């Protein structure tokens, strides 16, 4: 099961939509840096996939609330997710 990490805003990059096209049942999605702006639009109410994690410091920095459907993680949580999943896929561009 893969962990997909997205670091770009879904409004200015295709990273998230490309990732979702490659998302399989049992995978997990982690939003970091500008990737957390996915929480700002429609996705915040009903995520396209499950489970979705979000780096709490990056959301707080940008003034975004983390909805109940998304799990907030800190750096240790991020490392744990990387350890639990294989492979880890970066969608950084």
């Amino acid at each position, binding site marked *: 099961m893969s962990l997909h990490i997205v*670091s*770009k*805003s879904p*409004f*200015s990059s295709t990273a998230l939509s490309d990732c979702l096209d490659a998302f399989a049942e049992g995978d997990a999605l982690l939003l970091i*840096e*500008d990737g957390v*702006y996915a929480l*700002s*639009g*429609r996705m*915040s109410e009903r995520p396209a996939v499950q489970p979705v994690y979000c780096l*709490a*410091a*990056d959301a*707080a*920095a*940008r*003034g*975004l609330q983390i909805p109940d459907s998304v799990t907030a993680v800190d750096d240790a949580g991020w490392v744990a997710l990387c350890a639990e999943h294989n492979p880890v896929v970066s969608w950084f561009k």
Partner: protein
Amino acid sequence: MTKRILALCRQAPYGNALAREGLEAVLAAAAMDQVADLLFCGDGVFQLLPEQSPAGIGQKSLQRNLQALPLFGVEQAYVCTKSLAQRGLDLEALSQGQLPLVPVDDSAALIATYDSVLSF
């Protein structure tokens, strides 16, 4: 006559340095009596979200920095309403601070009124 300058603020605040560079350029220009106008569009509208707390990622709050603009002679800022709508935001969702925000429906028409446009 003084040239009219518009700073186009297109980037979200912390993922890269452009948003901050744009603000620095506007502040530097203002210090030299060249007051630029600002138009927030695209992901740049995210610079205006309230309650940004970037201490956890080791950065200064750009939203707070922007509130200082009136002291530098920049009395207001324009916001592209189309960009807001695309992101599920409206003007009320943005920071109601000391920098008054003016909604703009037709960015092209606004941009056309300037002598120089700096894109950040």
